[in-house]
């Protein structure tokens, strides 16, 4: 515990007498300091182990430092890694707290039905818990077919379970990261350039001359390499343009901040296209060579003048022109960022397409300072028998949405309620690494679905709210205590990263690969898990990739040479985009064929009535949604969210800084907990804002319980994207309640 302090005492106790002694030593430091190559390890004598982070989806490679007592003390970024360049973000650095958290799930739990009183959990052995899970899964398979068992997942544990599910015969798999987050932009970009944006986004921010953020807040989202590259872009004098109703951190770094009226972004995008085309400042050569349907687009945006957009967006026409010209002046080294969480208003795929088309007009896709052609290296499949062919799966469940390319979590939830989608009846859930009640809106529907399904098993490291609904809870060890799949990253150059255990699993927790294998064997699927330890799988794969576990243990990250050609297009280079027409589709024949708008159309969305404010939510740099709120290191930085309120609104509503308020939404749903008001000029007068992920309602989360407010519970109205099924969540309006509305209930 006190090794650091002991060395501290040793140094300081030399005091003034030590000056000369240290004087010489420090000279050499001075020299190396100027070289600025000193990202280095701790003063302590610690063992280092290769890992990659699981505190968020960026998956930065790191070194975990462990002391003699097998305690993980520090996490430091791997310098070779293109996700973090040796520098983790606060959550990555604070990943030690995920490991050390005393509130972790400690042993398997099984629900007990008590006659005349509430259900409780009892502790169980792994054998008993996994046998129960396997028998329930077998029962669902026998009675309804394996397809009726759904996997709802996020992150690394999900991939082990996906293998189990496919072997078992179910492709009923979904993750909220799609239809509650980035799905629409993938559809929008896919329909325009023929390829997904993917993660990490292939944005060449470090070499950009102009970065446009529309509802993207780099710096508050700590998408590590992007934050680092944005900082480099600032150093290089890049023009940053931020469109946000809130004065975000990125807005404060921007030359232009467009304080847009919420829900009108598409009007601005169309107007920008209008300016580029009608001022004749779009990238003509690029559009001519690679574009399809430009003339249709030109006609389409004819009337979308900045004056037209002004009336909708409240952004002055000259600002719209000025920013469009700034983008054109830097083109093709201009990035209109695709954003990440883009499920806002239900027309999100079309907005994503407008963003993609704008990039097309600027010529940024495939050009330096714009988007690079990413590349990854394939990790060979560890041999296993072929998967059986399910009769239906995520695709059929989401068949109403022709452009969905992944499972739609909300549709899987709907199909779990008898009478909603009986064609594809879902009878059991396996939930892994996702706290559905904080991720998916419309809690009433989720609760109805959970009431209806016959069996729910939840795998997590923490007692998140979702565990409270489970029949069986499986405690997963943290990423710092396990082997996991090789991280193969799409980046400028392909790279792989290794995750190996830095310490033994605490308590009675186990890795997801182990649980999947155990359940698989109990289901008679042992052939799919032909290894004793997942380490063997990784070792086999690494050998096939021309490296080895031994090498990877030493280096953590390995870079490979590109094989797909240049990252950027040469001037005039013939190139076929992977779309239907082989071109960048400004006009989409595919959308037209399916009866959708072939080019994005602005439609007006609801605005709050008097006394109500639009509920906006976003990221805090210290937290990853709801999963980190209880982390001791990170809750120490921020343990509650606050409600951002414009001073004018505060005056009208009689609100003061730090006053506790409850919120009631348009459907009469009242927040469980209160939130403290933060009066700030950083927010518009028609909206309020809070960080997402707070307001936990499980007392087992001792630091997070009752701290701040859950935005998700107030999101009861969603507008579903007709293209891919995403849930638009930014159309919820709230009013303030200054008296505790739950008081009577408590008394």
């Amino acid at each position, binding site marked *: 515990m006190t090794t650091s302090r002991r060395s501290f005492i040793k140094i300081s106790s030399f005091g003034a007498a030590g000056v000369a002694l240290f004087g010489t030593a420090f000279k050499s430091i001075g020299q190396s300091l100027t070289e600025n190559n000193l990202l280095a390890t701790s*003063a302590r004598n610690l063992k280092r182990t290769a890992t990659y982070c699981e505190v968020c989806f960026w998956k930065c490679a790191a070194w975990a430092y462990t002391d003699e007592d097998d305690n993980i003390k520090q996490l430091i970024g791997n310098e070779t890694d293109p996700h973090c360049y040796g520098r983790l973000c606060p959550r990555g650095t604070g990943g030690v707290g995920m490991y050390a958290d005393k509130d972790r799930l400690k042993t398997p739990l099984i629900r007990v039905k008590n006659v005349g009183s509430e259900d409780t959990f009892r502790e169980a052995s792994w054998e008993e818990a996994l046998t129960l899970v396997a028998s329930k899964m077998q029962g669902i398979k026998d009675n309804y077919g394996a397809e009726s068992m759904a996997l709802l997942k996020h992150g690394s544990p999900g991939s082990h379970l996906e293998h189990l599910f496919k072997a078992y015969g179910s492709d009923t798999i979904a993750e909220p990261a799609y239809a509650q987050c980035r799905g629409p932009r993938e559809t929008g970009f896919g329909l325009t350039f023929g390829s997904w944006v993917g993660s990490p986004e292939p944005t060449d921010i470090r070499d950009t001359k102009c970065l446009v953020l529309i509802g993207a807040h780099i710096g508050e989202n700590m998408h590590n390499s992007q934050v680092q590259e944005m900082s480099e872009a600032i150093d290089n004098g890049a023009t940053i343009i931020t469109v946000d109703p809130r004065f975000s951190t990125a807005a404060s770094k921007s030359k232009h901040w467009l304080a847009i009226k919420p829900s009108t972004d598409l009007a601005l995008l169309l107007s920008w296209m209008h300016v580029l085309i009608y001022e004749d400042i779009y990238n003509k050569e690029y559009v001519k060579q690679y574009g399809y349907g430009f003339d249709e687009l030109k006609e389409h945006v004819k009337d979308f003048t900045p004056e037209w957009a002004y009336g909708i967006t409240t952004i002055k026409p000259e600002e719209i022109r000025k920013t469009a010209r700034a983008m054109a002046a830097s083109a093709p080294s201009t990035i209109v960022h695709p954003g990440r969480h883009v499920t806002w208003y239900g027309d999100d795929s079309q907005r994503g397409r407008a963003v993609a088309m704008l990039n097309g007009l600027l010529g940024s896709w495939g050009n330096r300072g714009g988007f690079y052609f990413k590349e990854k290296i394939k990790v060979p499949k560890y041999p296993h028998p072929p998967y059986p062919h399910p009769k239906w799966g995520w695709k059929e469940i989401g068949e109403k949405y022709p452009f969905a390319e992944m499972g739609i979590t909300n549709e899987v939830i709907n199909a779990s309620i008898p009478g909603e989608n009986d064609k594809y009846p879902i009878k059991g859930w396996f939930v892994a690494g996702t706290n559905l009640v904080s991720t998916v809106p419309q809690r009433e529907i989720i609760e109805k679905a959970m009431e209806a399904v016959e069996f729910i098993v939840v795998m997590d490291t923490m007692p998140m709210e979702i565990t409270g609904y489970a029949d069986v809870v499986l405690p997963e060890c943290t990423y710092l205590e396990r082997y996991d799949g090789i991280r193969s990253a799409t980046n400028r150059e392909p790279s792989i990263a290794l995750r190996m255990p830095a310490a033994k699993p605490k308590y009675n927790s186990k890795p997801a690969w182990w649980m999947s294998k155990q359940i698989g064997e109990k289901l008679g699927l042992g052939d799919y898990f032909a290894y004793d330890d997942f380490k063997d799988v990784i070792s086999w794969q690494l050998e096939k990739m021309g490296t080895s576990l031994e090498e990877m243990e030493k280096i953590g990250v390995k870079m490979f040479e590109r094989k797909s050609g240049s990252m950027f297009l040469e001037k005039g280079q013939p190139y076929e985009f992977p779309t239907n027409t082989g071109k960048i589709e400004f006009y989409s024949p595919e959308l037209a064929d399916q009866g959708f708008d072939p080019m994005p159309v602005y439609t007006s969305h609801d605005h709050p009535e008097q006394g109500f404010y639009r509920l906006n939510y976003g990221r805090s740099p210290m937290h990853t949604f709801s999963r980190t709120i209880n982390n001791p290191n990170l809750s120490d930085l921020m343990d509650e969210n606050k409600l951002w309120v414009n001073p004018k609104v505060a005056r009208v509503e009689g609100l003061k800084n730090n006053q506790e308020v409850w919120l009631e939404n348009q459907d009469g749903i009242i927040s469980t907990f209160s939130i403290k008001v933060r009066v700030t000029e950083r927010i518009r007068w028609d909206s309020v804002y809070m960080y997402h992920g707070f307001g936990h309602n499980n007392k087992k989360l001792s630091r997070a319980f009752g701290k701040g407010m859950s935005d998700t519970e107030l999101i009861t109205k969603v507008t579903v994207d007709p293209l891919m099924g995403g849930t638009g969540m930014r159309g919820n309006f709230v009013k303030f309640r200054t008296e505790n509305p739950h008081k009577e209930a408590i008394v």
Partner: protein
Amino acid sequence: MRYAMVIDTLKCVGCSDCVVACQTENNVPVGYCRDWVTETVTGAYPTVDLELKSERCNHCDNAPCVRTCPTGASHIVEGGVVLVTEDECIGCGACIESCPYDARFQHPDGYVDKCTFCYHRLEKGQLPACVSVCPTKCMYFGDLDDPKSEVSQLLKTRTQKVLAPESGTKPNVYYLT
């Protein structure tokens, strides 16, 4: 040798990675911190300005904490780094009261604690933990006596400020604006 830290407020996003890195590097107990991030908002919507910056002990040339310390526990060492000798500290708190930056705190073990510029790392030729981890690279550290050092160069070319200049402490943490 005159150590200084230079922090570019134009790049800082206020993520507080510096705070966590310091806590894990220096075993700072949860609930305490040697560095912290401040946010200053000026103007009125939509003409707003925001300054985020990481703050800590300013390792002042004219350090009031050293002058007020009755036991000599607070002292200045080579490079101008202000340190506290734990076993000489009686926890009287005079230094805490005298510091215009509110940089010191009572450690639960009974002595006064604060930023050391990661003196133990400097000794090994490493940067302070906060500087080494910062994702925006907005923090610089080096020797002001060396005119070629990055910190000297930055202070020569960029507009800057120090905190509480009126207190006459001659601080060694600079902010680029």
